[in-house]
């Protein structure tokens, strides 16, 4: 009727069902969390702030990074800008002359030399007006700026040399001046001068403070003769050949210009890609630093978890003794307290993620300029950080609980 336990089974032991023991531990954890609401809230707060900080900081950094990457995609990565510059505060700005440009164009490291002259002018067609940046460029414009036409064509080298009165208009210009009709072949007024529209540029993403789609491109020759009068280029875009390192090309151009300008550095060569690249690098470092700060707050949260778990072990010493007397193995006790600390951390993690989303949403609603990119990996990472925090900082208290002497634990309180 009453069978003695089979002592031969003692070597094999029995395993507590993992699910049942986790359920039991989770139940105990939930009860102790509910029983001490203030303590639970304070513990959670550390984890919540840590997780939310990680997500918010990395999301904003990632958003900024993506904005720069997008910017690089707009113009390509081998574009440089050349401009006159004062060599010293009193000296006049240097002038980039036509012979400078010809010399640079002869360099094998250079694909295109593209001077630009431009101003904001009033554009008119019929009764419609629009203010736009009217720039004189060469027929190489589409190749230099990676900017093809959406309809019609770009002006030809022939039209460039003839200084023909033809214009390629931006997407926005087309929308405003020719809302309901095909602009190709129509004559519009730029300032007081009539130009024939031969093409429409593809729409491009705008820069923060400049509407790229409100431009009109005309032949440089025409701009100089009919719009602005003889003038030096505002700036020169240089497209470096892909097969040479960009830094090498930059050195070559600098060297040849220095020679032509009699050793006076009255010009500035801006490597657009390099500046974006360095911005990118700075941002990368910044986001790493922000991440580190956020990680520290997570660490502080973890210490809070450890503190509470140590307290919990102390408060429940007798319960641990009871569980041991009723046959709990050390690993059962360990599992119980680890489950509890992980549970606390997970709840904190989930709330932290929600808080981060709320903060990011708020930031986006308040200002359009805040770049935000929520990367699932960051959310998952922050969440698993919380999980790992729970395990790491729950480990010591759990081990302490598991190593209690059953007799002493039962006698406590």
């Amino acid at each position, binding site marked *: *009727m*009453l*069978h*003695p*336990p089979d*002592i031969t*089974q*003692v*070597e094999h*032991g*029995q*395993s*507590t*069902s993992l699910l*049942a*023991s986790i359920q*039991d531990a989770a*139940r*105990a954890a939930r*009860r*102790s969390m509910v*029983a001490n609401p203030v303590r639970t809230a304070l513990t959670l707060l550390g984890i919540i702030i840590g997780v939310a900080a990680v997500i918010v900081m990395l999301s904003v950094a990632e958003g900024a990074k993506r904005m720069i990457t997008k910017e690089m995609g707009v113009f390509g990565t081998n574009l440089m800008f050349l401009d006159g510059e004062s060599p010293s505060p009193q000296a006049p700005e240097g002038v980039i002359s036509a012979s400078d440009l010809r010399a640079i164009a002869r360099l094998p490291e250079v694909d295109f030399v593209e001077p630009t002259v431009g101003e904001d002018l009033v554009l008119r067609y019929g009764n419609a007006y629009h203010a736009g940046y009217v720039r004189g460029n060469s027929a190489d414009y589409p190749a230099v700026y990676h900017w093809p036409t959406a309809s019609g064509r770009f002006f030809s080298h022939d039209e460039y040399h003839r200084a023909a009165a033809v214009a390629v208009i931006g997407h926005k210009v087309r929308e405003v001046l020719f809302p309901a009709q095909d602009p190709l072949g129509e004559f519009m007024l730029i300032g007081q001068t009539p130009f024939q529209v031969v093409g429409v540029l593809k729409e491009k993403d705008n820069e923060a403070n400049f509407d790229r789609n409100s431009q009109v491109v005309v032949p440089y020759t025409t701009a100089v003769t009919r719009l602005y009068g003889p003038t030096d280029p505002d700036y020169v875009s240089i497209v470096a050949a892909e097969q040479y390192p960009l830094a090498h090309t930059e050195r070559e151009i600098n060297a040849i210009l220095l020679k032509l300008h009699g050793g006076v550095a009255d010009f500035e060569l801006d490597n657009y890609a390099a500046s974006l690249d360095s911005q990118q690098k700075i941002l990368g470092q910044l986001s790493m630093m922000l991440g580190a700060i956020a990680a520290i707050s997570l660490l502080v949260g973890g210490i809070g978890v450890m503190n509470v778990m140590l307290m919990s072990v102390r408060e429940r010493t*007798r*319960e641990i*003794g*009871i*569980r*041991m*007397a*009723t*046959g*709990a*193995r*050390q*690993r*059962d006790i360990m599992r119980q307290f680890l489950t509890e600390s992980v549970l606390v951390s997970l709840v904190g993690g989930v709330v932290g993620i929600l808080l981060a989303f709320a903060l990011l949403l708020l930031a986006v609603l308040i200002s359009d300029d805040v770049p935000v990119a929520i990367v699932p990996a960051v959310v998952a990472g922050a969440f698993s950080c919380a999980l790992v925090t729970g395990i790491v900082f729950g480990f010591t208290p759990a081990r302490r609980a598991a190593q209690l*002497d*059953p*007799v002493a634990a*039962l006698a406590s309180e």
Partner: protein
Amino acid sequence: MSADSTASPVIELCGIEKCYGGEANGTKVQPKVRVLNQVSLSIRAGEFVAIIGASGSGKSTLMNILGCLDRPSAGEYRFAGHDVAGFDNDQLAWLRRNAFGFIFQSYHLIPSESAAENVEVPALYAGLADDARHARSEALLGRLGLGERLDYLPKQLSGGQQQRVSIARALMNGGYIILADEPTGALDTASGAQVMGLLRELAANGHTIILITHDPKVADQAERVIEISDGRIVRD
């Protein structure tokens, strides 16, 4: 009597000693205290044994050693012929879980858990499936007259009821050997009598009962009385 007196002893103690202190503890050397001195006894399956002694006589220490909560400093403890000294902590836990059921003077129920949950704790560690566990705890509590109070917390139960919950817990995994440490110590006469009745009933059903008490009247209800004084067995 269901006790099979011809069976080989389930528990054999031989020259058990338990000492505390005697080791350097910081700068102080705690005086060495010998709580158990050359205790030898054997208990056969199905026996109802009372261990009686005044407080400080070492009977609680003896119970802790018998129940594998504590290890002796010297001597041999054989459980069903196996030397327990060679068991690791997990194996001792196995014995506590599958061979023993504890009943304590102060019940030792987990305060945050309901009566049924408290009863189920040992089965949880034995890996019993949920349904079987719930069914068994319900049946045990029902048998002990607590079928209506499964979801009560310990503090919502009277002392006698709490002690019955702890008896149900001791029986959860079979309760082959019931170790009862002053089970009636905190109870009024009526509840105490009820608990003793339950123990007698369990003994009649073949459970081995080891009852620890200071009260000769309680001890007299057992078949065999072992008296312990100053860490030695003075009467068996």
